[in-house]
């Protein structure tokens, strides 16, 4: 059995079958939620924005044109919803580390640590770099679709992705080195007994 393409479902929604939107919601709520949560670090806000996206789809469904790739269209709606939100609440733009989802347990301690460092490195990137990596790596948008979404040339998308990846590598590298240094210091501190008497003067 083949799945009905998103585009066909959206055309049904456009023509009045609102309940069909439920199928699209089931397909897209998790990817959209991840797009927002990894971008903003705020779970509650991410859920609100996902709801806003589907409300906007209903409101503006007549602006959906046959032949438009639905995935690209919904991310356009999603970007606009986020931009509008941060225009209304500019103070919330900062990504608060404590709001981030906990790191899920993975197979090994090393992998777990790598995931944590990678999340931290991703958070250190400027928002536009984080966004482009999320769009191409997690949302599986084609470069052409990202170019249309960001309103730039295809080659610009390639350059931006490469720069974002370079920055992520540097941030990850620094964090890994920092962690290794801390471990080495801790190991050294365990081996060398503290020098007594100094503080007694």
């Amino acid at each position, binding site marked *: 059995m083949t799945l009905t393409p998103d585009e066909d479902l959206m055309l049904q929604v456009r023509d009045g079958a609102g*309940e069909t939107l439920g199928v699209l919601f089931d397909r897209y709520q998790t990817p959209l939620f991840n797009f927002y949560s990894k971008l903003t670090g705020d779970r509650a806000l991410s859920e609100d924005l996902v709801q806003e996206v*589907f409300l906007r789809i209903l409101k503006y469904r*007549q602006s959906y044109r046959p032949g438009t790739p639905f995935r690209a269209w919904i991310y356009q709606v999603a970007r606009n919803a986020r931009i509008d939100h941060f225009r209304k609440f500019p103070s919330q733009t900062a990504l608060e580390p404590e709001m981030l989802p906990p790191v899920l347990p993975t197979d090994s301690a090393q992998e777990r640590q790598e995931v944590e460092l990678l999340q931290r490195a991703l958070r250190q990137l400027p928002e536009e770099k984080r966004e482009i990596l999320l769009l191409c790596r997690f949302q599986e948008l084609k470069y052409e679709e990202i170019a249309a979404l960001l309103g730039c040339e295809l080659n610009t998308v390639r350059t931006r992705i490469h720069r974002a990846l370079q920055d992520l590598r540097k941030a990850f590298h620094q964090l890994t080195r920092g962690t290794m240094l801390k471990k080495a210091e801790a190991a050294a501190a365990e081996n060398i007994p503290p020098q007594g008497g100094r503080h007694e003067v």
Partner: protein
Amino acid sequence: MKCEQISELLPDYLQRRLSREQDRNVEAHLEQCAECSEEVIIWRKLSLLPVDQPSPESRARFEAMLQAYQAGRSNQPADDSHPRKQASAWNWNVLHWLRSPVGAMAWSAALLAIGVFAGLRLAAPKPPSPDLVAMQSELTSMKQLVVLSMLQQQSASARLEGVTWSTRDQQLDPQVLSALFHTLRYDASVDVRLAALDALSRHGRQPQVHKGIMDSLQQDQSPLVQVALIDLMLEWRDRDAAHRLQELEQTPNLNPTVRQRVEWAKSKLN
């Protein structure tokens, strides 16, 4: 190959979009260059990041929103209950409007104004001359004419388009503002009313817009618009929120979804 050349190919390599030969070239470089190969490793490691799951309530919220929306739509007059027909008529309506005498005049004048404006701008990149200022104001009034004309169209889609047009300007002309308020209160289509609310809410810092929007809460009969207004009231931290919610709650036959939203909003206020 150097890193610079690889950097052009790397994004396509990561998406497996290169030819075999290009693929081999990139791989040969990666074997020699630690930095580039680390980038590929980082890209692959990104797949280790956990997929966050939204809360189970998310689906229920969506259902409630959809129900409220459909309830709102079923309250609309019969002529709006044929969206299929309406959708197919959209293009025709816009074209028809463009061909109509008012549309043709508006567009001709707008194009002329754009042409002169562009000409002046290209010819004289100096401080704005009085001509340029006059032209800019003419262009603005043309845009307003287009908006006002579209808001009066029979087709809901054309009116929706008119509302969208109105959001392109940072400042709203009082005439457009008043037309948008009229749309918010009296338009037959819930979609158009919601879009008008969106457009107006961008100017919520102006006290008269704020008050006008909040006053429409009592008048609107569509649950969807009411819910949107309640949300906006909370967002704006409206001073009279408690009083307005109280009044709304006392409305006979209030839609259950709206009543639920009122209760939720009241709990947020406390």
